[in-house]
């Protein structure tokens, strides 16, 4: 039949002329190839065909407007459209504020919360929503004093609510840690501000604390600070500042101070802080305290006695203590 040797007939496996059942679960697409064959020849719409008309849409609109300028009632229509757009805008803002207030009451135990500004707090609550329950493992010999300052600094945009646990690897807490813990846990929280719950676990970890957001810990107090200032919108966020590189450099020095093992190592690190401070009020030659000051204050308080500091640094240290109070 289809060859010189007649062995046997094979069954036809493909039938071309049966109707195909298209799945209806998704959505229909226009068949772009069949249009031209249907006889409606329109080059500008057919992707396959070569467009004969080189005009782009912008030009087309211009042309259309030129033609229609003299149509009566056009201005009226325009005004109406404008009005509708305005109303839509208003509606959108309303929905946003409702959304925001709902989110906040889910997050915090605040009874009533009135959103003040739209854009900034919206971003804020969206970001903080992700940080529902953070765990921080801390070595009790290195209490992170910066948390106390940052809690006060951020209190207008986000509440840092602390609760503390003692892990079984630690037998008792030193006095400094107990004092810091009670100040952090008993701090007053503002109403109407989103709340982030931080669990402090005093645990036998290394000098640098661990922040657990997902399964991989973020190591180091300075990195916890970076995380917090980025999560909450505040003046401490230094990403957009011109000297952000300088701040990062200072933060890294603070990290090294906490990690340092010998006094000579520490002294050289303190010198670089001193250099950065110069004659100005705050580190990095700034006129306002930055996150670097907070981190450095905490790092120095953990490791060095004030007597070891240079005169310039100890004056700065006292200024730092003043913002703490």
């Amino acid at each position, binding site marked *: 039949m289809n060859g010189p040797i007649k062995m046997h007939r094979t069954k036809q496996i493909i039938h071309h002329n049966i109707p195909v059942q298209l799945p209806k679960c998704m959505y229909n697409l226009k068949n772009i190839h069949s249009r031209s064959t249907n006889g409606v020849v329109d080059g500008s719409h057919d992707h396959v065909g070569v467009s004969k008309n080189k005009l782009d849409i912008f030009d087309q609109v211009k042309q259309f407007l030129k033609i229609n300028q003299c149509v009566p009632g056009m201005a009226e229509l325009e005004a109406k459209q404008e009005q509708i757009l305005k109303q839509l805008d208003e509606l959108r803002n309303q929905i946003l504020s409702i959304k925001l207030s709902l989110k906040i009451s889910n997050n915090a135990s605040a009874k009533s919360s009135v959103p003040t500004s739209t854009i900034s707090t919206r971003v804020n609550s969206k970001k903080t929503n992700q940080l529902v329950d953070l*765990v921080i*493992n801390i070595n009790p010999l290195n209490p992170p004093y910066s948390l106390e300052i940052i809690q006060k600094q951020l209190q207008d945009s986000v509440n840092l609510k602390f609760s503390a646990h*003692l*892990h*079984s*690897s630690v037998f008792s807490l030193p006095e400094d840690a107990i004092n810091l813990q009670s100040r952090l846990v008993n701090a007053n929280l503002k109403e109407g501000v989103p709340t982030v719950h931080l669990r402090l676990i005093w*645990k036998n970890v290394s000098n640098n604390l661990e922040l*657990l957001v997902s*399964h991989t810990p973020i190591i180091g107090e300075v990195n916890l600070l970076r995380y917090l200032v980025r999560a909450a919108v505040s003046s401490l966020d230094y990403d957009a500042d011109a000297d952000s590189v300088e701040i990062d450099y200072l933060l890294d020095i603070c990290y090294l101070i906490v990690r340092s093992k010998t006094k000579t190592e520490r002294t050289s690190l303190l010198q670089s802080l001193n250099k950065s401070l110069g004659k100005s009020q705050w580190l990095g030659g700034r006129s306002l305290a930055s996150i670097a000051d907070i981190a450095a204050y905490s790092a120095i308080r953990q490791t060095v006695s004030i007597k070891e500091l240079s005169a310039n640094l100890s004056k700065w240290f006292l200024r730092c203590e003043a913002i703490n109070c």
Partner: protein
Amino acid sequence: MVDKNISADNSDKAESKKAAKKEAKKAEKASKRAEHKQTTVQLDTPEEGDVSLGKYGNLPLIRSESNSTRVASYVKDLNKSVSGQTVWVRARLHTVRARGKQCFIVLRQREFTIQVLINVSESVSKSMVKFSSGIPKESIIDVEARVAEVPAGVAGCSQQDVELVASQIWVVSLSAPQLPLQIEDASRPEKSEDEEGLNIHVNQDTRLDNRILDLRTPTNQAIYRLEAGVCRFFRECLMKRDFVEIHTPKIIPAASEGGANVFTVSYFKGSAYLAQSPQLYKQMAIAADFEKVFTIGAVFRAEDSNTHRHLTEFTGLDLEMAFQFHYHEVMLTIGDLFTEMFKGLREQYQHEISIINQQYPAEPFTFLDPPLVLEFNDARKLLAEVGVDVGEEEDFSTPTEKLLGRLVKAKYDTDFYILDKFPLAVRPFYTMPDPRNPKASNSYDMFMRGEEILSGAQRIHDPEFLTQRAKHHGIDISTIAAYIDAFKYGCPPHAGGGIGLERVVMLYLGLDNIRKTSMFPRDPKRITP
């Protein structure tokens, strides 16, 4: 007559020949036995000219005929500080090994072991050494010896820097020469480090069949001492908080919970049941103004389940407490009780824990102070993050529970945590519903290493509401009339819970079977020994 006599004599002779043969065989057997005995236990009186005559042998049965002021030392106290002194020790013979003119004995007292050396010398005869080497293992012996320092240290003994040089040795109580299990086999670590070493283990059933021997292993000594510690801490912590210990009846007229899994006992002309929990009686004590009560006692469950964590009889530690405003007062009291218990174990039972870990290695138990409290919905969120969805009114299955345990451990690094606000639908009818969320209830579970150890709740203390809830659950009111009546004359709001002692010990130590923490376990297949 003579002939007869002869023939009789002959037949007698023939018989006697046979008998003689038999006798000879018997005698041979007896002598063999005697020989065997001699090699194992030397009961005969020693040969003459023995220099150490009267310094060894079998002590007559002690029937308290005379008293003595002799002080016996404990093996654990023998160390360098008493070196050179002569001491008396009564302990078990752990192993014995003879080598020519020397005999090494390892004495064991609980988990402590010490080496005894019996050396042929002026005062110690050869036959004394021979006698010593024939004492069967596990016999109890009295040894008089001088404590001597060993500079090189004795490997394999707990008292490494000293040994005993014996001058007298007496058998106080003889053990049968054949042991159904060897103590060394029973105390071998589950996963030995060297692959080539002996890998003989004793089966769980063999252990339980010969529990007396099995319990002599250092590990079992430590486990049951720790178990006693758990019980003691439970009692002490609650006493400190003004709880009253009560004793509830174990024979009860009606099934206290459910009814399907209850043991029936004949009670004179009728029948009675064994208590499944002291629940009702604890609550009655609260209604009777005892305010805070606890009880420690046997609890019976006729569940035909042969799992690693079910027993038909176990020790229940139950408590019930009246509170002022919120059931969290009770929940946190229980949480603190656990923390205190764990701290006590960590500080006072370090030695026991390390011994147990040698045989059954486990990660040390971690906990937080104050304990971690999560709400049921938080737990659901944690599970949802890893793709396990649990319904709002659904209970956790055992694998989910364990997974949750791992997640909590990864995030908070704690083996103990409290889960609050369980769904009302999965709790018994007497559980107080949550006033804010109709789907939730004022109930909590506590977990250790991902397994539930305590289940508790605020109970409904209002008879009308209780009746309503019982009806909602389709319970015949007449069967629980006694329970409801307990609240008829006013009852303070109260909550409580109960734990199983064996399960808590098992999970604290990270053991794999509850039979390891029950001295004489009862399960559907075993009521002996």
